[in-house]
């Protein structure tokens, strides 16, 4: 067990290395660390569940997972979103296995107990005859997810009733969500079910790859340079700002060499620009008018990208959210959502969707190459040299880019700590710090008491 073998020394060494911009490699796929992560990170932080447009009408439901906890998310008659553990209170059977649908009651296939949209137990087969009057049905309703809240249509859940409220957790990321999700009248809408697939990867690596690593773009996605779609300049994804916000969240605001995008407002129809201006502050509008790609993440396992892309010569913008559901130290189930402005013209939405399929998701040509590097990281992670906790083999990953070298840009108009390049490991280091803070909570305390 970790508490016995993960001696304080290994933890101290870990912290020491992290303070030098290094991250010990044994940590990435260590099975004990993984167990700790599930309890201490995923059991305590806010995780993304769904977007409001996935639950349009009363009775609409979707089933989701918070790592291993099955979640049933429903809209009740009052229009409120409720999150339940998707498990019958009688003997624990998974209550609903459909991905989505619309219902008034959920009936368990095992003994037939049934629940309404408010999670109340409303039916017990032969109830009075077998349980008598003493059975109080109100004690046997579906168990609610301790906290469910939403911001800009993004619904999150948290298993820790004592965790800080969602808005406080998101912190300055809210300001960026206001741009990404709030720029249009009516907000954004999700198209269909999320694509899901299983990748060979550790969740930390995928989250970092998206939220914190524009540096990989020039090599991993070099095929787009070969095809003449991306510029030759190896710095091309580095122009702009990397912004570190609280709690391990962060966003890269990638512009271009000139400080502006090739096309204003990410290639959205010009007719939408006045609407963006109206819904945004002047600072937000300034950023949106110049950005090429927004890419970032909400800790621990939600990432997003809002790029400019096109399959047939026309440029389109869309918003992609993805959730990295850990399945084990070396596996993630990726959930990928496509979002587009409700107010966008229908042809634009369709073209943007095709642009999305061509670039991200399992069939996206950019993402395909990402999956290869994620797999290569875990495929070498079992070696003794890699796993050595005393770090005798210099088995530490390098997060030195911009470390103690690049100062924040005080003139940047948005919130957060903004560095004047995205080729910097500032978000990664902040994710690691946050990881360490969460994972060592109570653990070190206990050690100290002993």
């Amino acid at each position, binding site marked *: 067990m970790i508490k016995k073998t993960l001696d304080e020394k290994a933890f101290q060494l870990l912290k020491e290395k992290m303070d030098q911009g290094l991250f010990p490699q044994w940590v990435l796929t260590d099975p004990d660390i993984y167990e700790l992560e599930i309890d201490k990170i995923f059991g305590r932080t806010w995780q993304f569940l769904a977007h409001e447009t996935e639950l349009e009408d009363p009775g609409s439901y979707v089933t989701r997972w918070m790592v291993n906890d099955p979640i049933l998310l429903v809209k009740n008659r009052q229009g409120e979103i409720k999150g339940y553990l998707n498990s019958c209170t009688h003997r624990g059977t998974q209550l609903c296995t459909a*991905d989505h649908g619309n219902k008034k009651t959920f009936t368990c296939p095992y003994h037939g107990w049934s629940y309404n949209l408010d999670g109340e137990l409303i039916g017990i087969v032969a109830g009075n005859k077998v349980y008598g009057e003493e059975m109080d049905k109100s004690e046997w309703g579906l168990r609610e997810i301790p906290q469910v809240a939403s911001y800009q249509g993004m619904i999150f859940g948290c298993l820790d009733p004592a965790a800080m409220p969602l808005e406080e957790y998101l912190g300055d990321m809210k300001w960026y969500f206001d741009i990404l999700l709030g720029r249009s009248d009516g907000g954004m809408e999700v198209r269909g079910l999320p694509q899901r*697939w299983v990748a060979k990867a550790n969740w930390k690596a995928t989250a970092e790859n998206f939220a914190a690593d524009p540096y990989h773009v020039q090599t991993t996605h070099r095929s787009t340079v*070969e095809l003449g779609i991306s510029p030759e300049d190896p710095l091309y994804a580095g122009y702009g700002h990397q912004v570190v916000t609280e709690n391990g969240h962060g966003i890269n605001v990638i512009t271009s060499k000139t400080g502006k995008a090739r096309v204003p407002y990410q290639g959205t129809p010009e007719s939408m620009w006045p609407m963006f201006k109206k819904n945004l502050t002047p600072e937000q509008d300034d950023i949106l008018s110049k950005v090429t790609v927004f890419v970032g993440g909400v800790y621990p396992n939600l990432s997003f990208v809002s790029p400019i892309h096109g399959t047939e010569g026309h440029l389109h913008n869309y918003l992609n959210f993805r959730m990295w559901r850990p399945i084990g130290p070396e596996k993630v189930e990726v959930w990928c959502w496509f979002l587009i402005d409700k107010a966008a013209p229908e042809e634009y939405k369709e073209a943007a969707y095709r642009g999305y399929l061509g670039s991200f998701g399992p069939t996206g040509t950019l993402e395909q190459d990402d999956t290869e590097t994620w797999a290569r990281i875990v495929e070498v992670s079992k070696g003794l040299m890699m796993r050595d906790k005393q770090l005798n083999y210099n088995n530490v990953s390098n997060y030195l880019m911009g470390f103690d070298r690049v100062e924040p840009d005080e003139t940047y108009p948005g919130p957060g700590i903004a560095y004047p390049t995205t080729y910097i490991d500032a978000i990664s280091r902040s994710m690691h710090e946050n990881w360490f803070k969460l994972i060592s909570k109570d653990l070190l305390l206990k050690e100290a008491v002993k």
Partner: protein
Amino acid sequence: MNSGLSIPITAQLQMEIISLLNMEAYYLDNGKYKEWLDLLSDDLIYRMPLRETLEGVRADNVSKDASFFEETKKSLTTRVNRLYTKSAWVENPATRQRHFISNIMVESMENTSEFKVRSYFLFKRSRGSTHDIEQMFGERNDIVRKEGDQWKIVSRTIIPDQSVITTMNMSMFL
């Protein structure tokens, strides 16, 4: 259009269409993507909707709004061109793959120059020296047409049987 008219499906016709699908699989499994493109008509519609898990015995569980592919010949050409670059890492080193195509059924259509072809696919892939064997399976609904003396695929809808894909990416064509 005379809806009463239907072309008899002769053994000869069936053989020609089966050969088309076999040739296609051969091209895909041997990295001959440009040759593969030549088997596709210029007005091609190439789709792969998601499969959903829905309640109900007869529920149509092919997604109406979410897909893995929504392609034209042009967008497939872009995807193919990428596979001829040096840095499409997902296929460099190349994966080894097989398309097993079976249960082929040919049906005539109202438009007498086109035929409906239904087939099953089993796709297997090996990558690097890893021991995992990736696979995917499902059904394909095609429309084919003879242009000159060359059969072409005019439309394809790929229906996977998994709602959660277990290949680590979908760099393959199906």
